[in-house]
């Protein structure tokens, strides 16, 4: 699956064989070999994962066993009631939204939802939201504001759905309206990039008081393939583009575009959903506590100030004459 894990997988296979052997014959004397192998796996995993290239992180961020929005909801948000529909046109399964409990209060949860199997992915449109998905989210943001409930959003999308039908129903308009609404929403908003944070389709659910990224998630203005096609005129250069785009959590934290990186368990979130959820849950709890201390006017103006600062520009004095 992940080619940079070939070595690790060899060790994993060997461990599995010995485990079976030990089970069949408790006196087979493989116990010591097993401990050695386990230590080696740990060390080499740590080594591989502390030196991941951007492209390897892209692969991790897209890993089909990676926890998706509903996996985190299952583990962190009890009493979840999923709500459906935009009250306009349809219900888009590539966005899930609902009410839930978190840390003993009621909250609103909204996120992109990818599938794991092909059938699921067809149903979920590979996590590419349609206008009605964004408008369902918009409606639920409205509920959050009306009933004064904090909002958690989870980003995991290659981008917004770009078909002719999506254009017909105003994909740009749907995305823009969500951004404008989130920017001024009068409740705390906490956003986490859990997998792929792809372009405007991510941002439409992604403007918050705090933006977190799971360690191996990515967040980008365009997919590496799209950027490669545009810039290098060939999507083969996706690996090169992945590096050039500075899309990893560490790069983006350094750039000041996100607030916090949530550590993933050794070997990536896909190897241990519970551990990943536990780490995320802790960060979300801390973050929510912080935000709930602020009065709402301050919060909304701080949110504005936060985005206000996102940009690096220069001055060039020999200006245009018009």
């Amino acid at each position, binding site marked *: 699956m992940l080619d940079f894990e070939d070595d690790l997988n060899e060790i994993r296979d060997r461990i599995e064989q010995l485990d079976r052997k030990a089970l069949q014959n408790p006196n087979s004397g493989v116990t010591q070999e097993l401990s050695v192998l386990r230590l080696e796996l740990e060390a080499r995993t740590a080594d591989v994962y502390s030196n991941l290239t951007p492209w390897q992180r892209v692969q991790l961020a897209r890993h089909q066993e990676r926890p998706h929005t509903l996996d985190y909801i299952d583990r962190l948000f009890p009493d979840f009631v999923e709500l459906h529909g935009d009250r306009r046109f349809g219900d888009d399964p590539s966005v899930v939204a609902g009410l839930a409990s978190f840390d003993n209060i009621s909250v609103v949860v909204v996120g992109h939802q990818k599938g794991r199997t092909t059938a699921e992915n067809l149903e979920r449109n590979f996590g590419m939201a349609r206008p009605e998905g964004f408008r369902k989210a918009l409606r639920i943001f409205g509920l959050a504001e009306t009933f004064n409930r904090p909002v958690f959003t989870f980003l995991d999308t290659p981008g917004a759905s770009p078909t002719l039908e999506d254009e017909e129903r105003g994909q740009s308009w749907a995305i823009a309206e969500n951004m404008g*609404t989130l920017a001024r929403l009068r409740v705390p908003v906490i956003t986490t990039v859990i997998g792929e944070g792809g372009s405007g389709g991510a941002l439409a659910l992604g403007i918050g008081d705090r933006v977190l990224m799971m360690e191996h998630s990515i967040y980008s203005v365009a997919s590496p393939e799209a950027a490669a096609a545009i810039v290098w005129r060939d999507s083969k250069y996706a690996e090169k583009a992945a590096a050039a785009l500075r899309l990893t959590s560490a790069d983006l934290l350094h*750039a000041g*575009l996100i607030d916090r990186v949530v550590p993933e368990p050794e070997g990536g979130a896909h190897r241990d959903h519970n551990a990943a959820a536990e780490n995320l849950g802790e960060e979300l709890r801390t973050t929510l506590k912080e935000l709930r201390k602020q009065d709402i006017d301050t919060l909304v103006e701080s949110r504005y100030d936060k985005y206000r600062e996102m940009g690096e520009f220069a001055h060039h004095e020999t200006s245009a004459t018009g």
Partner: protein
Amino acid sequence: MQYRPEFEAALRVCSACNYHDRMDAAERIALLLDEPKSFIEIDADITAADPIEFVRPSGSYMDRVGKARALTNRNEAIVCGTGLLNERRVALGVMEFGFIAGSMGSATGEKITRLFEMARRDLLPVITVTSSGGARQDEGLFALMQMARTTAAAARLREVQIPHICVMADPTLAGVTASFAATADIIIGEPGATIRFAGSRVVKGTIRRRSDVEDHTSEWVQQHGMLDLVLARQELRDTLAQLITHLAPVGHTRNLKPKTQPATTPKPN
């Protein structure tokens, strides 16, 4: 093809087929304001930095910016300022497509945000004219975040009852369509302009000027409910003046000077 001077006089509109050719920012400002000299530019010196040190096979981002600057005599892909429309001072932001396909980077976003902030402070109605390939890839996620902050700045206008009218000119694509432009109170398309979300993958490069298909023209987009009006260039100024009269705060009707100085020294245009 027409005799050139006549074409210019006709606001770059072909009298035979109504083709609306692209205008540069200066032409657009002259078209929209009572007089071009009423325009007071702000933030003309703001220009791109290189936040992710992006290099294309064809050269560095900074080379690209340098060439765009030489080509357009502008420092960025938008020209912002104030001017008189029907004797009322308005805030005006006109994108310069010649500058890296009108793409939106940090400096572009900064200028748009400052324009909205000035309008909010001085209670000036805002007109934007978009012509853009979308977010500027060369700035990575910094470019994407310009969608967020320009939209946030636009959203704050509504809270102080300041109208924003957007004119979508050819082409208005991707990250610009899907941000401050689409949230405008009134949206006007220019005839035949390509307006769409899926920009870069379909409209390749900066040479091709119109979509081959009729699918994503202003007229098509209006049919689908996204535009208030599609207006020929000849009608644009008068209709904008009417709309601003209808929506702008009462009591700020004539010749209001900006209350505070813009952040950089204004230069006559």
